[in-house]
């Protein structure tokens, strides 16, 4: 079948506009259809390329997820090969520290999720001038004394 480029096609449409039926093998397309087809072809190609890159990024950053996914495969020679390849890949990612990114983010998030109200509400208002100086000097005793209150501390229990 002859490949018809959109530009040729537009020409064909214009030339045969008033002539009714076209020769067999020549589909009459409107300019709008040609534009749609062209846009669709470009968009599909663009998304397909983007998805390939997305998969590569995920394989790189989430090799642990890949191992988890393939562990669910049934038993068989092909599956076993896939599992071994995935584990080798994950091992390489661990060796280069790429797999640590996931663990690092998760550790930070877990800490943030579990933060109690006390950490949010108490720490800030209790930072007085004396305390800041004490912390700057690295004097832990003075700092706890300030938190407990100067009167109690000076009474020397």
């Amino acid at each position, binding site marked *: 079948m002859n490949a018809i480029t959109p530009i040729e096609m537009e020409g064909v449409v214009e030339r045969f506009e008033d002539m009714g039926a076209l020769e067999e093998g020549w589909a009459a397309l409107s300019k709008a*259809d040609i534009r*749609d*087809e062209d*846009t*669709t072809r470009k*968009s*599909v190609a*663009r*998304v*397909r*390329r*983007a*998805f*390939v*890159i*997305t*998969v*590569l*990024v*995920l394989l790189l*950053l*989430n090799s642990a*997820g890949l191992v988890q*996914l393939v562990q669910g495969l049934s038993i068989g020679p092909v599956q076993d090969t896939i599992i071994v390849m995935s584990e080798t890949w994950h091992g390489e990612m661990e060796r280069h520290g790429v797999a640590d*990114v*996931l663990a690092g*983010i*998760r550790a930070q*998030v877990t800490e*943030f*999720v*579990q*933060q*109690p*109200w006390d*950490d*949010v509400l108490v720490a800030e208002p209790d930072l007085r001038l004396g305390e800041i100086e004490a912390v700057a000097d690295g004097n832990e005793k003075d700092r706890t004394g300030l938190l407990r209150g100067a009167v109690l501390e000076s009474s020397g229990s």
Partner: protein
Amino acid sequence: MLFPTFEFGIFFLIVFVVSWELRRTADLRKLFLLAASYTFYGWWDWRFVGLLVVSSLANYLFGRALGALERDGLRRTIVGLAVIANLSVLGFFKYYGFFLESLDDILITLGLQRDLPFLQVILPVGVSFFTFQGISYIVDVYRRDVAAQRSVVDVCLYISFFPQLVAGPIVRAAHFLPQLEEKPTLTPAMVGLGITLILSGLIKKMVIANYLATELVDPVFFDPSVLGALDLLIGVYGYAVQIYCDFSGYSDIAIGVAALLGYKFNANFNQPYRSASLQEFWRRWHISLSSWLRDYLYIPLGGSRKGEWGTYRNLFLTMFLGGLWHGAAWTFVFWGTFHGAMLGIERYVRKRFASLAPPVDGEPQAVSRIPDAASWVVGVIFTFHMVCFAWIFFRAESFGLAFDYLVGFGDWSTPVQHATPFLAMLIAGALAFHFTPPSLGRWIGQGMKWLPSPALGPAFGAAIFFIWAVAPEGVAPFIYFQF
């Protein structure tokens, strides 16, 4: 197969590539999409694919019969039979156990206990959604909004198309079937919107909804009697946000996936918690269901054409049945009934309000002088709390737990146990999102529209990875799967 899983990711990649390769042969493409949809559905339980096929074929035949007949009386009979057939499927799978249990309770109360034919009926995933789509097709053909389809594949694909199959949005036949007849196109705008919606859906579901469910809502609703008012209050706010993010997240992904396959679905949510009245809330919440109920139930019942009391009755009945649609439990019935009653009261109050304070000689009276902004703020806060009150019954396992929840609001001395700063931040952030410009998503989509693949791919991959890393481990099923 759940959307936020690797399995679905691989499935979608294959469907995307193959379906676009087949775009020049429309029939083959539709056949492929239908096979993909049955695979997607069969991933849960292959046995129910048969039910889906039979339901689709029955609706196709009813549609053909309606298309072939001219006499009104006969057409009415056919549409009636089709609706009964669809509702019978739904009734058996969803309500058989519920009605029998309720009947048993009544008989025991009356001292007339009998051995009833109880069965262990497994609820097929998405039965409520594909039944409603089947009814939509039949009624649209009956009303001549859409022609009876000659292609059985088109009807089956309309009812079974995988993005909306198990949890909506409920797509109208008159909206979707014409798209199947056109040549599929993928524009940069659809790519931008599709990617944006998929990412926003993943954030909503995997991060916000899952954290709120596991860290706050599930423990709070498990035994509300041991918790103080602050936990309960933040718990119900959390549930309001969880169910919104869970369901609108699913809808976002469904609409995004459909867009990348070349099909357009209408929006299903539109910042519902910014509503200043319940009427407005139902125009913004689960839009595909509320408009379905309006067009196929409320208006056929007479809508607002049957006088004042007729309108109240129709509102009430529509919401009552809408509540029952959500689940086979009295708590859902109460939820729907409450909304129906409150919609009626709201309508009545608004009318009385307007008649009490009409402008005199063009001069606004006391009530009319209340600034619009002030009445809007009061309206938003009041509506949100009405909706939250109803959510307690929607989420609680039983009336007993719902009452325990309400009683707990009297205890402000018990310290907070479950509501952490992180969860409070999630709730506040999700509620604040409701007051951002409504077109925010479209703007972001516009930004993505022209991104070249070397930028789009890494951005999409990094975003998915980040969501995966930040979200709690494990994938919780979507709330609306049970409906």
